[in-house]
Every structure is written in structure tokens, then in C-alpha cells.
């Protein structure tokens, strides 16, 4: 392990802000790229299903 204690790990030798900001952005990007299609998919499937049930035509 490159760090002796947890607080050293968080501090990153003084570069903590930069490292954690970057990794935070990374997680955010991954989360959004996966989450948004899932939510959009659910919403569009619900809308399409309702339209089919109502009048057989999903347009």
C-alpha cells in the first residue's frame, strides 16, 4: 500500500483536492451515463405501453 494511514490516503500528499475532484467527476460521469438511459428507458416504455393499451397504435 502506498499510504500508511487513512488520513494520508485522503490527503494524497497535499494533492487530495485534485485527486478526489477528478475521481468524483469520473464516478459522476459513469453514474450519469448508466443511470440516464435506464430512467429514460423506463419512461419511454411506460409511455409506449400506455399508448398501445389505449388505442393499439404506439405512434
Amino acid at each position: 500500500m502506498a499510504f500508511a494511514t487513512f488520513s494520508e490516503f485522503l490527503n494524497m500528499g497535499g494533492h487530495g483536492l485534485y485527486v478526489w475532484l477528478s475521481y468524483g467527476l469520473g464516478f459522476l460521469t459513469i453514474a450519469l451515463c448508466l443511470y440516464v438511459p435506464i430512467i429514460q428507458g423506463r419512461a419511454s416504455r411506460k409511455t409506449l405501453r400506455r399508448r398501445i393499451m389505449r388505442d393499439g397504435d404506439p405512434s
Partner: protein
Amino acid sequence: MASKWLPRWFFQLASPRWCYDFTGKLIPWFAVVGGLLLAVGIVWGLLFAPSDYQQGNSFRIIYLHVPAAILAQSLYMLMAIAGAIGLIWKMKVADMVAKSVAPIGAAIAILALATGAIWGKPTWGSWWVWDARLTSMLVLLFLYLGVIALNSAIENEKTAAQSTSVLSLVGLVNIPIIKYSVEWWNTLHQPATFTLTEKPAMPAEMWMPLLVMVIATYIVFGLAIILRLRNEILVRERRSSWVKALLTR
């Protein structure tokens, strides 16, 4: 056209239904393997890899920045090639792939730029620097944004797909020219300082987690593209019987 030398699976790909079923099977694998590799890569990079002699611990940003940069460029190529296939062979699925890739590619380009800029602060002292790699990545982002803007400006789906295919191809041809001229411009205005990533000089303890992260991000963002693609397929094929059956099950 040319069906003699193209394999059968190429034309099978053209079926949106086949594509939907096939990608559905891929999702659990991509999720598990991608998630695992991502966890391994990040833990390795943050905890176990050595810090750089000159840059200290901010060097660990490389495990995000380089995969993002590589992916942003590969995805543009994928988008352009998918667009070309859609244009030449008139395959709807290829157009749908291109449309699904665009926003993901742009998001990754932004991530690459952001991590590059953040990395630059402790290294060079400012939040932005006009070096060749960052400037090229910025231009790549502009190319992505252009494709997205054109797609949303055209109402007819088929026309939009064809126009953006032409645009991405024009962009693809230009990318090497842009890279070359930006690199040249950079040497003119800045003496050759060390670059953010000294890949050849990296010892194994440093580039192995990087390799893991590159593979992990390919899989994870590949999953993101698959998810978008499946949504696109359902919406575009909503009038077909298999979609109706699927939705009303």
C-alpha cells in the same frame, strides 16, 4: 451489395430485433465484468500503485484521464464507422448505434478535459494550459457537439442520421490533420516540456492498473452505449409486432 465476401453475421446485425435480443444477453456480463475491473483498477491505482517522483500523488489522476482520452477518440471512430455503414448499406441499426454513441463520447471527452485540467493545476500551476493534447481533445469535443447539434436540428430521423453520418466522416478525415497541426502549433509556442503521461518510461506497477482501467472503461461505457441503443431500438421500432408484444407482456 458485396454479400459474397461479407459474413452472415454482418447482415444479421441489421435486424433491430436480433440486436435487441443479443444486447440483452450481453448486459449482465458487461455489468459484472466491467464493475469488477473498474473496482480492481481504481483500488490498484489509488492505493497500491506508486506515486510519481515528480508529480506526487496527483499522478493517480492518470488512471482516469488516459482511459477517458483513449475512449473519447475510439468512440468517435466507432460513431463515424457506424454512420458510414448506415449510409452505405442503409442499415437502421448502424444509424442507431451512431446516435447512441454521440452523447457518451461527448461526456467522456468532457471528463478527459476536466481531469486533464485538474491534473494540470498541481503540475503546471494553472487550471488550464493550451498544450497539444488538451487542445486536440477540446477540438474533438467540438466535433462531437457539432454532430449532436446537427442531429437535434433535423426533424426527419432518416435525414438526420444520413447528415450526421456525412458530418462524422468529414470529422474523421480531419482528425489526423487537426492533431498534426495542433501538435505543430504547440511546439512553436511552447518549448518541449514533459508531457502529462510518459507512457514508455512507466514501470509495470504504474501501467498495469492503467491497462486494467482502459479495459474497464471500455466495458462500462460500452454498457452505457448498449443501454442507449436498446432504448433507441424500442422507440424506433415501436410499430413492429415484436416490440408491441414485448411491451405488453
